[in-house]
């Protein structure tokens, strides 16, 4: 018996080759899909926090400004997470017995801060500063999404480098007048590209430097 392979092996080989090629393509597509999905990016995925704090209620419902809690956003790299005292400035007066707020009161009594889980973060090798963005006319909504409609807080954007670069390459498409930075309802005007260029010029945004590596990786 000199014939090692059966006759159908000839066709089998072709099927196998096709399967390898298609399988590799399929695997690549699946991996890309997974990498872009919220499963990896955590975009639109709410985290379970110690207190189920609702931006929807506080911002949209009550009309509290972002800076009431995130006090250092205009002056510092970090926007600031409010201390328990900020919560208690209202909640010592209203909803004083609400069970939901028990951790807040406990934190106030023991002087141990609430442990919020960070939602928006960039890698350690990225230097990010809130104040420069806010002062040059990047709205809160541009990066954080419609926070005023989040019952539980989640990432509004992927915060990946490619996403950052969209604006760093063409800031005129995203900038708004400094007065509108904290306006959650602002919509770009029809002539945004013209207005945006004006904002770039007036705010002294050096577009040619914005994509230098060392702007963010210092």
């Amino acid at each position, binding site marked *: 018996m*000199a*014939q*090692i*392979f*059966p*006759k*159908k*092996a*000839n066709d089998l*080989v072709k099927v196998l080759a096709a399967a390898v090629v298609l399988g590799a393509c399929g695997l690549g597509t699946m991996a890309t899909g997974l990498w872009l999905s919220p499963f990896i990016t955590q975009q639109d995925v709410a985290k379970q926090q110690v207190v189920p704090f609702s931006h929807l209620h506080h911002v949209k419902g009550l009309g509290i400004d972002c800076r009431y809690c995130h006090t250092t956003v205009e002056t510092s790299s970090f926007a600031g997470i409010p201390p328990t005292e900020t919560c208690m400035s209202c909640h010592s007066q209203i909803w004083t017995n609400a069970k939901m707020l028990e951790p807040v009161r406990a934190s106030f009594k023991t002087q141990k801060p609430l442990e919020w889980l960070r939602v928006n973060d960039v890698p350690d090798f990225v230097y990010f500063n809130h104040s420069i963005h806010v002062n040059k006319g990047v709205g809160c909504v541009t990066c954080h999404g419609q926070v005023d409609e989040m019952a539980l807080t989640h990432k509004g954007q992927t915060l990946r480098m490619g996403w950052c*670069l969209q604006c760093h*390459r063409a800031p005129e498409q995203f900038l708004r007048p400094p007065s509108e930075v904290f306006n959650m309802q602002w919509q770009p005007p029809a002539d945004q590209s013209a207005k945006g260029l004006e904002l770039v010029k007036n705010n002294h945004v050096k577009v040619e430097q914005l*994509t*230098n*590596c060392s702007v963010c990786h210092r």
Partner: protein
Amino acid sequence: MDGLAEAIGFKKTRLPLIILCGGLTGACTAFGFQYWASAVYYPYNIGGRPFFSWPAFIPITFELTVLFASFAAVFGMILLNGLPKPYHPVFNSERFAKHATSDGFFLSVETSDPKFDMETTCALLSGLGATHVEAVAQ
């Protein structure tokens, strides 16, 4: 067997053309991509060099030319030869399997040949001094 191809008169194969195409594809892909990525899509300043600093793109262009041409050579050779073909009727012959790949010389005439006729062909081959003639089933 050295010189056999020349003796039979094989002169042309499309293989060199395929390899040339592979190499040119590699060169164009590499150079075009480097130009696009470095000068069009994201031009960044490296030590004050021009964005389209073509001499720096040559090494990768060369490497990909060789890579694509080599793939074209190997896969072109395999596919033009109709391989992989694990099953072939000649393997049905015991003598073929024993000697063909080490020390034998075989001549195979297929039934699809217009001049094929079982008896006359066998007679012809024997008459030419073959040591052994055998019919191989499909």
